[in-house]
């Protein structure tokens, strides 16, 4: 009984349920929000330490042996992703206290946030493919609701695209699950992996792989399936944008990593090239999309797409080092991208706009904010010794070792284009003097929601920003321990037998033991049944 593997899912569910129950009381909601986030962070740390020291940790929910019940399993990848969820969750919790309007708080902002985290955590921990679908839906519906909270025109327009295209992905996913069950007769991912290896109809296996690839590709916003992201991510309140940017697309990427290392490893020969070019085009189109933009959050949104390309590149190269690099990129990107969105929120609060042309002068006015942005932005561009550099370096090294020269070269060039956008923001927002025509921001505009702000508690906005910026720096400076974790992840993912054993191994014998007495009983009954009619 290892509760730590289930608690990261159950705790946010519980805090979500509690905060729904206390929907009348704002102070209570705010308290539950932060307390729940702190608890989630602690539990995720617990899980991380446990996985680091003990290896795979599993729990058979309901005490039904695998593959019959639902398995929750944490390997190193899950543990890292959960840890990131915990960190980002708390950062967002604190930040939201300062930015969320009363109306939003009243209509379920905090429960939605917690349930979103629960969905994310569930997706990271589940070992069951249909359960993964369920967590995806929890996450999606929570994100739908968060996206439209406030009900402005832009939000509605963005939400329609977001909702429809994500639902399309969900249906493809569901269709694939149905076909998968029809093909192999099981839903447990480890069991599926075993059975797919023996499957005779390799065409069906490939089709399933392709369907999962497209479905998760949509959720991850890979080329050419990313349209929903730039259309919607810049529309909701900034804390929501940040949360989405940090975590949501990464769930899609995580699923790609999980499914293609565990279940569909035999199809990689064919799919690798497709994925590689998908990754390359994702990087390029994303970064080019940002080059023409002059809206803070829109630039950042396009960069999410571009960064997704890096992560998928890691998977497409399909070596342990490349996987390590891809995961490093995920971790780095979660920290940095969230932070950049949070910073855009602060600048918006300070200057009342997201339009770069109208902003300026923050380098002199807010040096600490400038430092935080500088670190995050240049980290995103992969400048050493920040976190992004190591992600990029590992990927470049893996790419060159795998002799994928073109893809690696493009990955490097994309880094330069990332720098272009980041320098654009830096020059416009921080270095340039504030343009004459910008008036002092009105509080009405500042939170993007209901205009009845609590006192502008800037420190609550600064705290997460500074901490995340420091994280980006520290990940770079103390890259060794992190790299060891990443290398372990690379090993674990490329050798899924450990995962399968952790799920099936011990319970395989239990399954036999459980089945045995019934086989004796079942047979006469079934004979009866055959005889009767």
């Amino acid at each position, binding site marked *: 009984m290892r509760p730590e593997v289930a608690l990261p899912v159950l705790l946010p569910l519980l805090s979500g349920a509690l905060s729904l129950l206390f929907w009348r009381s704002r102070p209570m909601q705010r308290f539950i929000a932060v307390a729940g986030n702190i608890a989630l962070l602690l539990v995720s740390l617990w899980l991380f330490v446990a996985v680091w020291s003990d290896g795979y940790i599993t729990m058979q929910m309901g005490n039904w042996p695998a593959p019959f019940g639902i398995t929750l399993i944490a390997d190193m990848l899950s543990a890292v992703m959960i840890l990131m969820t915990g960190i980002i969750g708390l950062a967002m919790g604190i930040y939201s206290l300062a930015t969320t309007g009363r109306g939003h708080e009243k209509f379920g902002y905090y429960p939605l946030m917690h349930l979103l985290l629960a969905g994310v955590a569930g997706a990271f921990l589940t070992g069951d493919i249909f359960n993964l679908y369920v967590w995806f839906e929890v996450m999606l519906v929570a994100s739908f609701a968060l996206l439209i909270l406030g009900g402005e*025109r832009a939000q*509605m327009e963005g939400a329609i695209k977001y909702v429809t295209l994500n639902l399309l992905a969900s*249906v493809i996913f569901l269709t694939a699950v149905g076909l998968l*069950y*029809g093909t192999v007769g099981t*839903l447990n991912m480890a069991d599926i992996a075993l059975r797919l290896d023996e499957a005779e109809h390799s065409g069906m296996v490939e089709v399933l792989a392709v369907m999962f690839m497209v479905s998760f590709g949509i959720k991850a916003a890979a080329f050419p399936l990313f349209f929903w992201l730039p259309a919607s991510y810049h529309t909701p309140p900034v804390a929501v944008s940040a949360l989405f940017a940090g975590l949501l697309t990464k769930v899609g990427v995580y699923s790609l990593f999980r499914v293609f290392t565990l279940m569909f490893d035999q199809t990689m020969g064919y799919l690798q090239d497709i994925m590689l070019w998908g990754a390359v085009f994702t990087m390029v189109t994303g970064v080019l999309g940002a080059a023409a933009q002059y809206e803070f959050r829109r630039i950042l949104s396009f960069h999410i797409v571009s960064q997704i390309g890096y992560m998928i590149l890691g998977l497409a190269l399909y070596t342990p080092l490349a996987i390590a690099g891809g995961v490093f990129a995920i971790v780095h990107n979660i920290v940095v991208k969230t932070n950049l969105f949070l910073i855009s929120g602060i600048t918006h609060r300070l200057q009342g706009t997201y339009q770069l042309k109208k902003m300026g002068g923050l380098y002199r006015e807010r040096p600490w904010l400038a430092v935080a942005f500088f670190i995050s932005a240049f980290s995103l561009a992969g400048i050493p010794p920040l976190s992004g550099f190591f992600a990029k370096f590992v990927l470049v090294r893996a790419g060159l070792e795998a002799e994928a020269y073109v893809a690696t070269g493009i990955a490097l060039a994309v880094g330069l284009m990332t720098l272009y956008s980041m320098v654009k923001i830096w020059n416009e927002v921080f270095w340039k003097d504030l343009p004459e025509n910008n008036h002092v921001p009105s509080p009405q505009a500042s939170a993007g929601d209901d205009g009845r702000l609590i006192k502008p508690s800037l420190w609550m906005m600064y705290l997460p920003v500074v901490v995340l910026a420091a994280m980006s720096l520290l990940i770079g400076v103390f890259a060794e321990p992190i790299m060891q974790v990443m290398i372990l992840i690379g090993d674990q993912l490329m050798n899924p037998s450990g995962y399968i054993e952790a799920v099936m191994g011990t319970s395989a014998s239990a399954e036999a033991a459980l089945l045995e007495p019934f086989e004796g009983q079942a047979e006469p009954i079934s004979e009866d049944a055959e005889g009767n*009619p």
Partner: protein
Amino acid sequence: MEPLMALAIGLLYATAIFMMLRRSIVKLVIGLLLLSNGANLLIFTTAGMTRGAPPLIPEGMLQPLGDVADPLPQAVVLTAIVIAFGVLAFAVVLIRRAYEIVKADDLDKMKDTDT
């Protein structure tokens, strides 16, 4: 039976996709509705269909009488139906609000956030 169902489900998917490609938001949502129904039927069908043997165990017995229909896809579809309903309700209200704002049932008039 399954080949017939497969044909019908294929048709369901086709109509759904055709509807989703229209410019009207309402048609889009109806397309989504058709699509999720299609997916549910697909799960139900691929696992094999059985006549007149629901997965129930008669009172006082430990095992069902004879072969019964596979209960797992049923449970999965049940979950999927409810999820689809929730999502659909959300989508339906979304188009209502979107219509209030845009004043037209035309997706082409909703591209301000992209360009």
